[in-house]
């Protein structure tokens, strides 16, 4: 389970936000541009520091500013799919997926086995030796998802994962994400600005507006217009 409380002063407003995500649950984080969605993910992952924060993942404290506890980003074991997938274009699909395992200095046979398993699960086994830079948007997103999940993370986070994808690829990535989050029972946060994404994939949705929680509930019950800034 993920429990996070954070405060960070941003340029135009203060991000003051708390969220809880249960294992196997997909929380969709929504909001307009610059509402603090990506900053929230970056604080949870440890990429940026909050002014004050308390983040606990599966009963392990990742960050507690009060006691100066801050687990480094590389030790948080969070699978994070950033915007535009960020697959390493000069590496093959296999090397992309193996990257996190190699960083953890696992044995080559374990790496080969796990990489093969995840390539198979994501239906990209035939692309193993293709340079990631030559893949289509949908294929890149599958590689990014496999790369994030192969490290056996305690939490999966995805920032605008469907933005650059066509309808077919979007559906495929949604299905894969949902299937594996349920299968391995980890909490998952998906940032998106499309309501259809939240109803398709989310168990719960949360709307952020100028750094504050505007609404939280079942995606299908989400209000159409934010009452604070009237963003859709």
């Amino acid at each position: 389970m993920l429990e996070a409380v954070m405060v960070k002063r941003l340029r135009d407003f203060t991000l003051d936000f708390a969220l809880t995500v249960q294992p196997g649950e997909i929380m969709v984080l929504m909001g307009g541009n610059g509402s603090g969605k990506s900053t929230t993910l970056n604080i949870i992952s440890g990429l940026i520091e909050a002014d004050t924060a308390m983040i606990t993942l599966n009963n392990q404290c990742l960050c507690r500013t009060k006691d100066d506890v801050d687990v480094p980003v590389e030790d948080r074991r969070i699978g994070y799919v950033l915007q535009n997938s960020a697959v390493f274009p000069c590496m093959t699909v296999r090397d992309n997926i193996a990257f996190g395992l190699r960083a953890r200095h696992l044995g080559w046979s374990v790496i080969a086995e796990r990489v093969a398993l995840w390539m198979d699960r994501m239906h990209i086994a035939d692309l193993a030796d293709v340079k990631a830079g030559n893949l289509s948007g949908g294929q890149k997103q599958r590689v990014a998802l496999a790369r994030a999940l192969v490290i056996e993370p305690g939490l999966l986070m995805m920032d605008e994962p469907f933005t650059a994808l066509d309808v077919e690829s979007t559906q495929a990535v949604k299905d894969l994400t949902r299937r594996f989050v349920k299968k391995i029972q980890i909490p998952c946060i998906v940032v998106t600005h499309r309501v259809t994404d939240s109803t398709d994939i989310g168990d719960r949705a949360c709307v952020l507006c100028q750094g504050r929680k505007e609404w939280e509930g079942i995606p299908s019950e989400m209000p159409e217009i934010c009452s604070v800034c009237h963003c859709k």
Partner: protein
Amino acid sequence: MIPKRFRPKKYRRNLTYLAAGILIVGVTLYLALPILALFIRISPDLFFATIHDPEVISALWLSLFTTCITLAVVILVGTPFAYYHCRYSYPGKVVVDTLIDLPLVLPPAVAGVALLVLYGRVGLLGKYFNMLGIPLAFTTLAVIMAQIFVASPFYLRQAKSLFEQLDPAYEQTARTLGASSLRTLTLVTLPMTASGLISGAVMTFGRALGEFGATIMFAGNLPGVTQTMPLAVYVGMQGNVNVGLTISILLVIISFTIMIAVRIIQKREAGHA
């Protein structure tokens, strides 16, 4: 009725072609003729005979040795410098940015005088080095220092711009996957910027190889010690013209090879993009 001042379309097009042709041929000839003249001025037999002249060989090896050392230092120090310079904000960053570019517009002779004033035998720092028995000016080390000062901006500017342009999402992803910052730099950042860094290194090599003004001011013109190829050309043209011409042709060949290498790398880079 069509006014007289309007010419037929074909006529106007031909006029444009003619103007473009004159410009292209004129500029090309202006750039190419002096180079061609070098090759015409000396016969191949004389060129190959002069190439074995001890003066030529000494200048060639000294130039290649110092330029390779310069390149190694610029890459090894310049790469992490450019990386940290781009990734962190610090007071005076704008001043450092300007200083990086300064040697590009500074006359090389002025750079040489500045180095001499600082590191010369009675220079601000040089006198202390001299007291320690480490003379800097008028040594082979001075040649390398002058080359680094004048040529390093070519690499630093390129590296800086590459690191700035690289989407931070790649490095952030690597970190969340468990890679340390060093591993991220070596396995993600450098491979993704390699082609551009190589182009910068090649340009640095070319500039260092052709360095004249700063070298003659700070390192002098001692055969076998500080007399690099451009300096040997200068000396040769005042005495043994064939030596000057032979070294000039060698420099043209090396420069041309460098430009071809840069073009190939840039083409490869464009293909990957």
